[in-house]
């Protein structure tokens, strides 16, 4: 590691830059969340894919199965909840049955409460609160493997026309995607880590790569907090790109590892 560019008294050596970067996210985040004006966000292709999938299931007279992951309140799960809300609304409007498997981890019961509220709310908003059926949102299990088994059981029994598997799924995702392909459902998945992304890209009809899912969630919800999140992420992405480009240029043209030393730990 390169030697440090600077030290600040009172702060552990080599850690100041990390602290500043984190504080930067806080400051930018709060700033963008307080703004009244909704920012521009590109409409990602995943959104069309979702509507197409729901439409296909409706045409075929088969249900839609939409899950939001099996973890606790993470970044992916919260985005998935926005998507679930929209899927639920579309399903309610088109009288398509919606199945939502829940559970899958020790904290799965916490997220379930929110998911039920969201789906219930979507049905109410579509003017069909009486159509909502909580039995279509079963709590499968608090353990991963039997959650998966239950999920597959739902696929085989109810033969959905579309499977929208968003949020944080891990190794069970491949299992579900292949089984959903076997029962002939149009499958939309989201990858939350690299090997999972590569495998699901092969196994599903449409995949939301990396943070396309939060971007889709933010676009659909038009919620200022979610939009602000995407904005801050984009700023940091551009910043990291700039650091890499500038760092490489300075280092290789002048031999001065300025950025390397700035980021030294």
């Amino acid at each position, binding site marked *: 590691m390169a030697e440090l560019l600077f030290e600040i008294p009172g702060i552990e050596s080599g850690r100041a830059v990390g602290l500043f970067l984190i504080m930067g996210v806080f400051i930018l985040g709060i700033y963008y969340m307080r703004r009244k004006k909704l920012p521009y966000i590109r409409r990602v292709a995943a959104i069309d894919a979702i509507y197409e999938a729901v439409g296909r299931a409706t045409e075929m007279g088969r249900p839609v199965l939409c899950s939001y992951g099996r973890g606790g*309140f993470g*970044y992916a799960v919260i985005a998935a909840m926005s998507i679930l809300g929209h899927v639920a609304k579309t399903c309610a409007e088109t009288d398509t049955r919606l199945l939502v498997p829940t*559970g899958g981890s020790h904290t799965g019961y916490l997220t379930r409460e929110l998911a039920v*509220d969201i789906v219930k709310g979507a049905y109410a908003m579509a003017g069909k609160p009486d159509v909502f059926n909580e039995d279509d949102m079963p709590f499968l299990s608090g353990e991963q493997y039997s959650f998966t088994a239950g999920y597959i059981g739902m696929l085989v029994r109810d033969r959905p026309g579309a499977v929208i598997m968003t949020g944080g799924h891990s190794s069970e995702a491949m299992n579900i995607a292949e089984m959903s392909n076997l029962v002939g459902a149009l499958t939309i998945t989201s990858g939350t880590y690299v090997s999972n992304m590569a495998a699901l890209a092969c196994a599903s009809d449409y995949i939301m790569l990396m943070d396309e899912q939060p971007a889709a969630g933010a676009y659909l919800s038009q919620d200022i907090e979610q939009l602000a*999140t995407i904005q*801050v*992420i984009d700023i940091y992405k551009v910043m990291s790109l700039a650091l890499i480009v500038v760092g490489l240029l300075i280092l290789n043209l002048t031999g001065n590892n300025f950025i390397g030393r700035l980021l030294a730990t």
Partner: protein
Amino acid sequence: MSWFFKSKQVNLAILVASFLIGFVPYFLKIPQIYGFATDLTNVASVVGQFTIVIAIYSQYRRSLKFIRERRKGWVYNIYLLVLMSAMILIGFTWGEHSDAYMLLVNSIVAPCSSVVYGILAFYMFSAGARAFRARSLKATLLLTAGIIVLLYQAPLTGAFIPGIEPYAVFLTGTVGMSLSRMFAIAIITGAIMLNVRMLTGRELAFLGFAREEED
């Protein structure tokens, strides 16, 4: 007293305070708070283990519901509850190192856990066989990289065509690695932003506040 637990402000204050206790000692040179922070970290790791009771409760409740309503597969749920209770009982009575308990772990958990993941080899196999088709430029790139690495990974190939190693290592160690790196750099900000939303009290659903407002 219940106002104290119910108050959004109190919970938010606890959240922020414990966040700072976890966060600050790493950056600031204040030796006095190290010991305290470590103690609280220890406490947090123990508190987290208590959630298992909730998982067990959910399992019992779901199974009992199945049994009560005589839903499909209710007999399996009786079996589940009996076996689970028996194993917990054995564990508590004779200890988790006793022969009886270990026998159950080795005979049931070991093979099943291996199957649950091992079965993914088959799913990977069929997904690969389906997707690796030269449909377009994108698909052809995937196919080429995949075939080279697959060939290299088969140990026999390396013995006969040693020249394949640099190509495969380039694809996994350089191309694949830059994907991981890009992913890591891009994803971290989202996680911090979620924390910002939670700490500023805008995202408190994880504490059950979304539910509250409905009631």
